[in-house]
C-alpha cells in the first residue's frame, strides 16, 4: 500500500504538467480548425515580433531627417518611401508598432482590471451598489467613445500616455458589464453555496470561485478590444490628441502626411495599411479564441 502510494505521489507532478499541456493541446486543436483565426494569429505575431525587434529590423532611425530625399516613392533603398522630412517610412512604421501595441495592451489591461473590480462588486453584492455602478456604466456608454476620449484627453493634456488612459477609461464599462453578467450567473451555481456552507467568506469566494469561472469571456473581449484600442489611439493621434509629432505613431503619421495624399500617397497608404492589418489580425484572433474557449461550440 505504502509503495503504491509513493508511486502515485511521484507521478503526480508529471500528471499535473501533462494535464496543463493536454489543455493547451485541446485548445490548439480547436483553434487550429479556424483558418481565419490562424491568419489573425500570424498577423498579430508578426507585429509583435516587429515591435520587439524594431531596432534590428528598422533600416534607419525614427527621426533621421534628410530634406534632400523628401517625399520619395518606394525604392530599393527606402522600401516604403520617405515622408516630407525625408524620414524612412518603413522604419517609422516598425517603431510605430511598439507604440500601437503598447497602447492596445495596456489600455485593455487597465480597463480589464478596473472593469473587473467594479463588475464583480456590482454583480456579487447587487442591490444599491449594483444600481449605482451599472447606471454609471450606462452613462459612460451613452457617450460616443471617441468623443469621451477626446474630452478626457482635453482634461489631461494631449500625449500618447494620456490617450492610453482615456481609452482605458472609455473601455471600463465594456468589461464591467461583461464581468457583472458572468458573476450574476456564476454566483447562483451550487458550488458557491457549497463554499459558503463550509464557511468561506465573500472575498475568498470571489477570488477563488467567481473570478476563475468568469475569465474566459474576458480574455476574448480583451483580444477584440485591443483592436479597438489601437484604432482609437490612431484616431486620437490623427486628431492631434494622442501621440505628438515626431513620435512615429501610425495615426499621427497619417495626420502629418494627409496634405501630401495626392502627390505622395505612400506617406498615407502604408501607415493606414499597418493599422488595418493589426486591427484585422486582432479581430480574427479574437473570434477564433471565442470559438475555441466557448465550451458550447465544442463538439
Amino acid at each position, binding site marked *: 500500500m505504502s509503495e503504491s*502510494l509513493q508511486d*502515485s*505521489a511521484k*507521478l*503526480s507532478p508529471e*500528471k*499535473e504538467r501533462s*494535464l496543463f499541456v493536454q489543455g493547451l493541446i485541446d485548445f490548439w486543436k480547436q483553434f487550429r480548425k479556424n483558418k481565419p483565426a490562424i491568419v489573425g494569429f500570424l498577423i498579430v505575431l508578426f507585429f509583435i515580433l516587429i515591435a520587439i525587434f524594431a531596432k534590428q529590423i528598422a533600416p534607419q532611425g525614427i527621426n533621421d531627417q534628410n530634406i534632400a530625399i523628401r517625399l520619395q516613392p518606394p525604392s530599393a533603398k527606402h522600401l516604403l518611401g520617405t515622408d516630407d522630412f525625408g524620414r524612412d517610412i518603413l522604419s517609422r512604421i516598425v517603431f510605430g508598432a511598439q507604440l500601437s501595441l503598447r497602447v492596445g495592451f495596456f489600455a485593455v489591461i487597465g480597463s480589464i482590471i478596473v472593469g473587473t473590480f467594479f463588475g464583480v462588486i456590482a454583480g456579487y453584492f447587487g*442591490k444599491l451598489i449594483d444600481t449605482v455602478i451599472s447606471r454609471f456604466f450606462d452613462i459612460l456608454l451613452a457617450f460616443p467613445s471617441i468623443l469621451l476620449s477626446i474630452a478626457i484627453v482635453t482634461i489631461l493634456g494631449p500625449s500618447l500616455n494620456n490617450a492610453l488612459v482615456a481609452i482605458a477609461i472609455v473601455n471600463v464599462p465594456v468589461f464591467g458589464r461583461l464581468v457583472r453578467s458572468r458573476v450574476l450567473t456564476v454566483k447562483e*451555481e*451550487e*458550488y458557491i*453555496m*457549497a*463554499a*459558503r*456552507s*463550509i*464557511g*468561506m*467568506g465573500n472575498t*475568498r469566494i470571489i477570488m*477563488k*470561485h467567481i473570478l*476563475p*469561472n468568469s475569465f474566459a469571456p474576458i480574455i476574448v473581449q480583451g483580444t477584440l478590444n485591443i483592436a479597438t484600442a489601437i484604432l482609437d489611439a490612431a484616431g486620437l493621434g490623427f486628431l492631434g490628441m494622442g501621440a505628438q509629432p515626431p513620435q512615429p505613431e501610425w495615426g499621427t503619421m497619417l495626420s502629418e502626411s494627409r496634405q501630401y495624399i495626392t502627390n505622395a500617397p505612400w506617406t498615407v497608404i502604408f501607415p493606414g495599411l499597418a493599422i488595418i492589418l493589426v486591427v484585422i489580425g486582432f479581430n480574427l484572433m479574437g473570434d477564433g479564441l471565442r470559438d475555441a474557449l466557448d465550451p458550447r461550440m465544442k463538439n
Partner: protein
Amino acid sequence: MSDSILEVSNLRTSFFTDDGEVPAVDGISFSIKEGEILGVVGESGCGKSVTSLSIMGLLPHPQGKIVGGQIMYEGKDISHLKEAEMRKLRGNDLAMIFQEPMTSLNPVFTIGEQLTEAIRLHNHMSKQEQNNRAVELLKLVGLPRATELLKEYPHELSGGMRQRVMIAIAMSCNPKVLIADEPTTALDVTIQAQILDLMLKLNQETHTAIMLITHDLGVVAQVCKRVVVMYGGKIVEEGDVKDIFNHPKHPYTEGLIKSIPDLYSKKDKLYSIKGSVPKPGSIKKGCLFAPRCDYVMDKCKEQVPELLGSGHKSRCFLHQDEA
C-alpha cells in the same frame, strides 16, 4: 433535553415576495442529539430545504428571513448571529452537503485544491500536512487512488465519486452536525446505497450528528433512528423509525409509506396520494392536509390539530385522544 446538540424550536421562516409574505417553514421544533441521525422526510416544497438553509444561515438574501423561533446550537441561539460569527460555525461546527454533486464542485479547480482550501479555511497547517489530511479524508470517504485524485478535475469523476468528495469537504473540519440535503437523490440506486453506508460509517466513526433530508422513506428506514415527517412547512409526525413504519399515525405518513412500490405486489397501478402539495400560504384554515386526506372530518377543515403525543407524536385529530 440537555444532550441535544442542535435544538430547533418553533422556527418560522418566510419568503417576502411581491405578493407578500409566504411562510415556508411554519413553527417547527425538533432536536438532534449528539451522534444521532435524524431523518427529515416530506414531499418537494414542504420546507425541508428551507429548514436546513435556516440552520446554516444560508437563506437567499434578502427574500428569505427567519421570522420567529430559535435555533439553539450547543445551548446558544444562532438564528440571528452576525454573518462573521456564522461563518466561523460553518464548516467547523455545522456543515452541509447538497443534492447535486454534479454542480457542487468548482469546475476550474482540482479536487485537491478544493479540499485543501476547505482544510486551510479553519486550520493552520503546512502544505504537506494539508495534503496528508486531504488524502486521509478521501480515504475516509472510501475513494481509491486518493493521491492521484487530488490532481484531477471534477469532470473526470463520476457522480458518486463527486458526492464522496463533497462529503470529504464537508467533513474536513470535523463538524459536529452534518446536514445532508437529499444527498442521494441525484445518484443511481447502487451508488445511493454506498453513500448511505458511508454516512452511517462516518456517523459511527466520527460521532457526527447527521440531519438527513430526503423524500425517500426507504433511505430513512436504512439509516435513521428517529424521523420527522414534514408537510406544508409543519411537522406532522415525529417518532422512532420503527413506530412510524409499523404504525403511522398521520394519514400523510401512511400515504407516503403506501407509495413505496412493493416488489411483490402485482397491482397495475402504483399508489399515490391524491392532489399535490398546496402552495405555501394558500390554505388559511384547518389542517393543511385536509384536502388530500382519506379520513377527512368536518373538524379538520375548521381547526388546526396540534402536534401531540409522547415519543411518537402526530398532528392529526384521529389520534388526539390517545395523547
